[in-house]
């Protein structure tokens, strides 16, 4: 039982990060039907910038005023930087291709991803950067399972951000415009919605979430490197598909679910199969669940069947 609770804590922490990144994929896909493969690298840019800023601001005493300064500074730099990167990628690379075949845009996104990785390699080098341990995490004991304050903060922050995003999408004019554009771009344009502004807004919001996710990942694991975005992006994309790509609630559910499946998978697969399959089948397990879900619900758990469009 204690093991199970611990694995659940592990999975929910990991899943919260996946969910935040998955939201960026799903928002862009919902509105312009593009799988933005560069999104994982926007997370990486956020993590690298945050690490650099935090390392230069962090004082000697962990937990003091300098810790908050470091975290605040990291947020203040990483969020605008990622928003600028996401916005420029859309403006420069994706907008000219908006009427081109979808494959062209997809390949362009992969190209943007490679460019971002190489720029990051030139700026920050090939070495691993470490996020300073500014917050010495308090560890709580929950009947044998351990929860660190950092894990709790990640889950709480992710939940708050997702709630905020839901409010924006369902309660504001911008959100209404985004939903209208997602339903039918041309008609929304005829109704007076400024399509370009809406699409830019989707990229800006998605990139801001990516920056926060980047800070979470690097603060939690303590590592940032220019290749880190690839795997994270792939997992988050999987989470988005699992939940139903294009659907915000789906991204959140898919992210959490993928995290929990991975943790429980690697935790129990060895014991369940009597040692026949080990924990290195963690990803196989996660993707098997994805395949099964897609067989029975081809548009994901919460995805709607919308004919050709999705």
């Amino acid at each position, binding site marked *: 039982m204690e*093991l199970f609770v*611990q*694995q659940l804590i*592990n*999975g929910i*922490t*990991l899943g919260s990060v996946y969910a935040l990144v998955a939201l960026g994929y799903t928002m862009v896909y919902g509105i312009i039907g593009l799988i933005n493969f560069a999104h994982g690298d926007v997370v990486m840019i956020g993590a690298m910038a945050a690490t650099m800023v935090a390392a230069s601001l962090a004082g000697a005493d962990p937990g003091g005023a300098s810790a908050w300064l470091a975290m605040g500074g990291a947020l203040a730099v990483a969020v605008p930087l990622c928003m600028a990167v996401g916005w420029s990628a859309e403006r420069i690379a994706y907008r000219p291709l908006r009427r081109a075949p979808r494959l062209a845009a997809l390949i362009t996104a992969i190209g943007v991803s490679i460019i971002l990785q190489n720029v990051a*390699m030139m700026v920050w080098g*090939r*070495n*691993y950067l*470490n996020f*300073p*341990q500014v917050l*010495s*995490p308090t*560890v709580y004991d929950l009947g044998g399972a*351990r929860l*660190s304050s*950092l894990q709790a903060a990640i889950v709480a922050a992710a939940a708050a951000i997702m709630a905020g995003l839901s409010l924006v999408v369902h309660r504001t004019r911008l959100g209404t415009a985004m939903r209208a554009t997602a339903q039918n771009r041309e008609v929304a344009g005829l109704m007076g919605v400024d399509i370009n502004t809406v699409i830019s807004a989707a990229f800006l919001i998605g990139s801001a979430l990516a920056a926060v996710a980047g800070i979470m*990942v690097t603060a939690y*694991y*303590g*590592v940032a*490197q220019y*290749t*880190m975005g690839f*795997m994270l992006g792939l997992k988050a994309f999987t989470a988005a598909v699992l939940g139903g790509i294009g659907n915000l609630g789906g991204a959140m559910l898919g992210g959490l679910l993928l995290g929990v499946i*991975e*943790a*429980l*998978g*690697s*935790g129990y697969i*060895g014991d369940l199969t009597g040692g026949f399959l*080990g*924990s*290195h089948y*963690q*990803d196989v397990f996660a993707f098997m669940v994805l395949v099964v879900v897609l067989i029975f619900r081809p548009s994901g758990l919460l995805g709607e069947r919308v004919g050709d469009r999705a």
Partner: protein
Amino acid sequence: MKSDRKLQHLAAACAAALGLAAGAAHAEDIRFGFAAPLTGPQSHYGEDMQNGLTLALEEANKQGIEIDGEKANFVLVSKDDQADPRVAVQVAQQLVDEGVDGILGHFNSGTTIPASRVYNDAGLPQIAMATSPEYTDQGYDTTFRMMTSDTQQGAAVGKFMVEDLGAKKIALIDDRTAYGQGLADEVEKAVKAAGGEIVRREYTTDKSNDFTSILTNIRGAAPDAVFFGGVDAQSGPMKRQLATLGVKAPLVSGEMTRSDTFIKLAGDAAEGTYASLAGVPLAQMAAGKDFEAAYQARFKKAPGVYAPYAYDGAWNMIAAIRKADSAAPEDYLPELARLERKGATSEHIAYDDKGDLKEIAVTIYQVKGGKWEMVKTMVSQAN
């Protein structure tokens, strides 16, 4: 038809470029092929290795070594194998096609082993950083090492854990690469031979950052020590997660973890971690200290784990060529096989008949006060 013409133009341009490149090469250039991960998650190791080689070649060029009556100019031909076995074979073929005189690479065991066949077919001597026993077990006469093999290192680490740390119950983690898996297998053998017990074996991948679920399993098995076969970019976060999960058993790892990157990434949690490394500490040897100073002066930073071994490996090849007075592989290969010299990492560099290093000292280090401090030097029994 139009595209055909374009292709012809392209082909002509390529041919011209190749011709130019061939024309530009000097007759006295001695070119060494080098391949390692220069991009991707392990590129910091590749860069470290490349710097060590570059330093050796620059020193050799400054000394004005004469081969066959002409002043030799040693050149490094660098290729990126991305730590990917498939890319490694392509890159190996490219190096062979470019007609290099010897190979200083690859870095990973997983890339070195498939590439070594290509070099062996071409008769090119190869000195690699790879530590997997399989590399020199293939029966090729062209394979040599820069480092100890995992058999040598694993035997020392396994014995150290059981006899010196007094750990009876040991948990193993490996990253499923030729290196990590091989090293963990050798450690397992040594632990069992010394009377210890493997209570849990877990696996991860070489791209993972999150180990909490496998570490939770390991915590359940309550081991006395945890051994990890893998890279520092992973052992750093792993050590942090062990601390968060409240596992008090020390982490023990191979030479890839014995780096400053590990200490940086693990932060305060790094204290008490053990790692092994071939040879004796650089600071204990005159040539080692000279190497450190020269590296610092040339690259403006301290050498990483692999730079000194790469440096020695390059000098081994240069020394063999000098002795044979020829850069033709068939001339200097026998000299390399019976080479004996003093290097920065060892007083007695010599190869056995398989191409493994004869000196089998392995030093165990521990993080104390944020620095790697030597614990003890062991002579490994296995070979």
